[in-house]
């Protein structure tokens, strides 16, 4: 890794964040709101990408991490009247606990079994949110009251329902997750994860503790997804069991595959593209699931590396 490529990588990432901040002032109202949502979901996809793209572990249960953050933040805010900062922290803590427990258990399996086990744990999580419907209101969900989504610093009040505040907070979260991912994948730990993806046996033989590295990846990934979930609850004020369903485990997989697995910026591109594809398609037909299904099949058939994966292969080998 030369000095030049390091500067180029950081330059590119800073430029992306700068463009996103600048868009706050130029975007029309509708797209402004959509982009705020896409950025939070892109953080979810980035968390997924860390595990799937870099460590090569295909999970079908990431909805539970997102939902852990969602409920971890939403429930105490709604029922106990916690403040925004405390709620966000408790959402991330919930993600940490859930991903640590699931990681410890699920990582005893590999390959297909790992996928099925994560899917089952996520299903259990989903059913639990329905079972405790008295507090979660199940599928119907909770709408967080507007006055609870304000934070007061001395004299200035930060209102999370204000579009500009919401957008800028979404960009901040996105930037934090982006640079955290970048730091992880460029670190020693990140390289070990890639080595595990390529050949786990050989990595273990070289003396690396593959279990500890994979567990760390599951937890980091889980906490990033939970942060996205917590932010989603606080910024958009809705907490519902839909976000814990299988569908939300599959969507991040689709976003990551489309944008390019194991690329830091791929999840943003995938999420953005897919969100607009579904949005535009639903203008013509209600059959948005058809769009998702056809996209998934076309991706594995003809476009296995995704957008940025292809760009990296053809033109820019330095992309992280």
């Amino acid at each position, binding site marked *: 890794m030369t000095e030049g490529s390091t500067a180029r990588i950081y330059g590119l990432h800073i430029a992306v964040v700068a463009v996103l901040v600048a868009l706050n002032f130029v975007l029309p109202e509708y797209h402004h709101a959509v982009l705020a949502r896409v950025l939070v979901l892109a953080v979810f996809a980035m968390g997924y990408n860390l595990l799937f793209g870099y460590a090569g572990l295909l999970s079908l249960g990431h909805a539970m991490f997102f939902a852990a953050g969602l409920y971890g933040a939403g429930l105490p805010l709604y029922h106990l009247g916690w403040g925004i900062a405390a709620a966000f922290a408790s959402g991330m803590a919930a993600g940490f606990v859930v991903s640590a427990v699931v990681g410890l258990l699920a990582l005893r399996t590999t390959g297909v079994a790992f996928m099925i086990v994560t899917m089952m744990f996520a299903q*259990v999580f989903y059913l639990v949110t329905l079972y405790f419907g008295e507090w979660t209101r199940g599928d119907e969900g909770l709408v967080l009251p507007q006055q609870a989504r304000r934070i007061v610093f001395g004299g200035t009040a930060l209102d999370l329902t204000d579009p500009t505040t919401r957008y800028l907070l979404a960009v901040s979260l996105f930037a934090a997750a982006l640079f955290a991912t970048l730091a992880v994948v460029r670190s020693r730990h990140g390289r070990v994860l890639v080595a595990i993806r390529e050949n786990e046996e050989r990595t273990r033989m070289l003396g690396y503790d593959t279990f500890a590295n994979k567990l760390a990846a599951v937890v980091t990934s889980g906490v990033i997804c939970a942060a996205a979930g917590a932010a989603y609850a606080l910024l958009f004020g809705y907490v519902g069991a839909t976000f814990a369903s299988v569908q939300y485990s599959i969507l991040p997989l689709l976003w990551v595959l489309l944008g390019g697995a194991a690329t830091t910026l791929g999840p943003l591109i995938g999420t953005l593209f897919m969100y607009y594809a579904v949005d535009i398609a639903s203008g013509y037909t209600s059959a948005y699931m058809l769009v998702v*299904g056809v996209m998934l099949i076309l991706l594995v058939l003809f476009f296995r590396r995704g957008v940025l994966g292809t760009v990296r292969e053809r033109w820019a080998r330095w992309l992280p």
Partner: protein
Amino acid sequence: MAFGPHLLLATLEGLVTAAVLALTALGLSLVFGVMRIVNVAHGEFFMLGAVLAWAITTVVSGNPAIGFALALVLSPLIVGAIAWVAERLVLRRIEYNPEATIVATIGLLYIIQQLALTFYGPEARPVTPPFNIRIQLPWFGYSGYKLSIIAASALLLLATWFVLTRTRIGLVMRATQYDRETAQAFGIPVGRVYGAVFALGAMLAAIAAVLIVPIQQAHYLMGLDPLLLSFIVVIIGGLGSLRGTVVAALLIGVSDGIISVFFSPTLAKIIATLVVAMVLVFRPQGLFGTAAK
């Protein structure tokens, strides 16, 4: 009702679940065993079987038994044809790469689900049972149709067992399962076997769905539960083992029946799913299987 008869009722209900589950899971297990791929769209083939059964019985007028018999033949054939086309067009081209297959079959799941929603609609619709006989037991009356499901499933399982172990087709399938390359070297058309096995797996799910649809309405989202339960059965029974699949289906079906009668169904599902996840974690080869190669 006293505890004894209540338990008997729960066991009978469980046996009906087990009968349908064994067929569905056998389909998944065959595909898993021979082709070494996970078909996430398996539950949708089940749903498609049920929805087609509704469509066929609605078109055919007259005695409900005629429509049902027709559905029992046509619905699996149509589902099998769809599965065969999907296998030839998609799975063959990605060369059965395990992860790509999962993603592709998830795509298939969404497509089938959306088409069912668009053309069939969001309603749950019943199918008239082919006959209505109540068998009077000393404590309660029980639907004769439900008992016939158990019998039909047992017959079909025996037939599958016979085909797999006693016929040339079964031999070819087992050879492909055992060693794909050697089988090919001996002139077995592996590609065609894969297509046939994938279609057969889907047909078993469709038959199971046609059998159950008179007592459980057809709905476009009905595929998820059979998918998860089939995974559970295949895992507990051990991969590619017919006997294991049947035993596991009995175990899961009957215990599911009993737990749902005495506890809330959601709690039953939570417990069952958690238990199975733990089996996978601590005994990945299944309760009856031997250690994986």
